[in-house]
């Protein structure tokens, strides 16, 4: 299965996301922000980093890049899209996911391993995770405080995919929300970095389930 990973100017975790895809048995494909073509991939990852230096507002410039037009079309057609950290911010800015991400409540960049629980398995990226599973995955961000007008409605619609476990909310996110999906479930965004949690040599492996989900769903 071919999983495309977009490189925006300022993307930092694009190479790591490709490595994670490869280590999970997928076929990583490098996608370039300036191309309007997804090269026939089966799924797309928008990686972490600081696209366009986070200037103006995180993700605000990247959403206008040519590749995002193609990603939006791909998402409309039901293609699996995962936004990690900065990629999550880009998807929110692009209107492909609900809500927004603001400056951390502590006003500092936070890098630590956190526990998140899987709240919804009705998504392309969590279908292989047992519901309620607790995953340990690192976060690393300065602007990851999730906000939404009506988090209860979002949860009722099943669109809350991940919540920080009690005591693990690193940024003051509303209702401990760590990740959400679109109504169809093919587009998922989260602040934790699953691509940095696949190799036991480097730490916890809570990210494997996300890649397993998309890889097994479409073989």
């Amino acid at each position, binding site marked *: 299965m071919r999983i495309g990973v977009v490189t925006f100017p*300022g993307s*930092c975790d694009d190479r790591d996301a490709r490595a994670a895809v490869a280590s999970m048995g997928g076929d990583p494909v490098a996608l370039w922000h300036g191309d309007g073509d997804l090269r026939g991939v089966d799924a797309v990852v928008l990686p972490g980093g*600081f696209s366009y*230096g986070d200037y103006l507002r995180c993700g605000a410039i990247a959403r206008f890049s040519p590749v995002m037009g193609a990603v939006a079309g791909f998402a409309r057609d039901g293609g699996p899209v995962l936004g990690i950290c900065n990629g999550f911010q880009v998807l929110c800015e692009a209107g492909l996911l609900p809500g927004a991400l603001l400056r951390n409540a502590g006003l*500092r*960049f936070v*890098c630590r391993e956190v526990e998140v629980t899987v709240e919804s398995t009705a998504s392309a990226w969590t279908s292989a995770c047992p519901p309620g599973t607790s995953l340990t995955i690192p976060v690393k961000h300065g602007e990851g405080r999730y906000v939404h007008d009506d988090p209860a409605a979002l949860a009722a619609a099943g669109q809350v995919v991940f919540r920080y476990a009690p005591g693990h909310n690193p940024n003051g996110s509303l209702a401990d929300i760590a990740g959400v999906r679109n109504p169809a479930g093919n587009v998922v965004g989260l602040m934790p970095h699953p691509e940095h949690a696949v*190799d036991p040599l*480097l730490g916890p492996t809570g990210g494997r389930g996300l890649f397993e989900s998309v890889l097994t769903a479409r073989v």
Partner: protein
Amino acid sequence: MSSLIEGLHRQLGLTDEEFERILGVLGREPGRAELAMFSLMWSEHCSYKSSKVHLRRLPSAGERVLQGPGENAGVVDLGDGVAAVFKIESHNHPSFVEPFQGAATGVGGIIRDILAMGARPAASLNSLRFGDPAEPLQRRLLEGVVAGVGHYGNCVGVATVGGEVVFDPCYAGNPLVNALTIGFMPADRLLSGRAEQPGDLAVLMGAKTGRDGIGGASVLASASFEEGDEAKRPNVQVGDPFQEKLLIEACLELGERRLLRGLQDLGAAGISCAVAEVAARAGMGMEVDLDAVPLREPSMEAWEVLVSESQERMLALVDPARLTDVLEVCRRWGILANVLGEMTSGGTLRVRFRGEVVAEVPAASLADDGPVYHRPMAAPSPPPAGPGAEVPLDADPAGAVLALAGDPTCASKRWVWEQYDRFVGHGTVAGPGSDAAVLRVPGTSHAVALATDGNGRHAALDPAAGAALAVAEAARNVACTGAQPVAVTNCLNFASPERPEVMGSFAAAVDGLAAACQALGLPVTGGNVSFYNESSGRPIHPTPIVGVLGLLADPATAVPSGFPRPGLDVWLLGETRVELGGSAWQRLTTARLEGRPPILDLAAEASLHRLLTGLAGRRLLAAAHDLSDGGLAVALVEATLAAGVGATVALPPGLPPLAALVSESASRVLVAVAPEASGDLSTLAAEAGVPATRLGATGGDRLVVPGLLDLPLSQLRDAYEGALPRALGEPA
């Protein structure tokens, strides 16, 4: 003697004698741009004029050394066709004037040094020094520096994986910010900042040139602080990590596609230094066209363009036939690239600006012919009193352990390193909190270990011993992971070299460094000297910071520093003596600095390292943790808290119990092994001539020394993890 503008050379930081020397080199008066170039290139920061004669004593050869001192960074052969590029540098003064930008651009600068050799910058470590973190100014400095280090490293995608932070009043008016970066690359793609032949083009890549950082290397880095130096803020550079990220990717693509003849970063003294060095290294000259430099402010004068230290710029040396390809790569990554000059035979650097020749000087005169000083030296004043035995040793042991665990210097630095991305790059096997960072080497099945250490209190008491102890400690930290130490980089932070006693202690520290590196078989591949670390006449402690690189065959065998599980035997390797001179316990209980630093037996240290790598190679070590600040007390706290596994231990016999806990004798390591491995450990230690004492076993959720102390880990954790937040007035 005359000068274009009377005394201009003095404003630029040149002495009258140095000005005379320039007159001699040129055979005429320098123009304003020329004078600016000389003033920067001959500054202490760029020319090492006070330290050069001493640094020659450092051993720099070794079979793994592909590049020693003199290039942008040192290079070590890791085998399998892969090389590691690493170096440490200071950005002390800018970080005092403007902590966030000063620290950020320090990180950006060392990253470009690594990049200039052709390597992908992979990870950074930082050695930081501040005054008391409870003081508002120090808190502001700490917060700014940590945020700056984090911001730059996080944004460019270079993991920050270790280092150290120490608080001591001597740094209150002059904090230290030493940044080390390591990168990896195929050994056959090594670049150098050297043109190959006349006609090669010099392409200026990256950010526009502005008025920031003018005189950074001379008036800022090469002079002491006085009251009112807030006025030096415009001398500090301003960083844009986004621009640097693009520059990194563009340069790496150029290197990968073999489109470059050479690469040079623009750091101190900006364009002046870059063009002079690439020309001088190749024994050539260069025709430089300053009109090709994209400017932020069109009103800039030639001398400003020449010496601006605007960040995020590199100079690529390019075969003219490859120019189109090079410019295309830069365009794709969205960075500016312009042909700044052309290499010429002969050694003349000729600079044109708006139709005029503004400088015409021999390139070598700037880069290599600067003054070299044999500055007067005085023996450092001998440490007062005896071995520090006046330190009280009748305190309650439990209270002593809690006090040390809760001392900001000894305590957890989680508050600091949680602001750094330690994951990016998919290589961090062991990160902050470990004795040494362990990094997977891309493209191989191997790993490297890296540690930085330095103890200014020890160096203040005896500069030679302090420097040697720093080498020993950093190498020991590396050996604790199971890696074999192979190379050294160093940053020597001292006060004004114009003081004979400072120069004396500097020379002694170099001797100590050289002796330790020689004895441990560690070549010095590069580094940095930072002088003038004093403020209003108050010097810092001599602070040699040493970074040691080690090789580990298999990252899966990396030994953790904490006890991983119950049921292990706990051993202490090395000999404990009553050595409290300069110790953390002396500082905590007496606020004094006196006595002798711990004795270092370099042969014993080397045996210990061999024993550790041997034990790790046989997979006998479940944990290994170096003893340093706070001695056995702090080592036990850290080893038990790491995974929340307690221990019940006896203290090494033959000395007062409290001394056994707080003494800082060198060459000691706390290890844990499975009980069935204790026999092997004992035999191998005896064969290596390393004293080994079985102290007890891991288990439970308390740290217990029967009859002496019994502390729940929760209480230790509160002291150890809460210390720094509490000092900063934040909830733990």
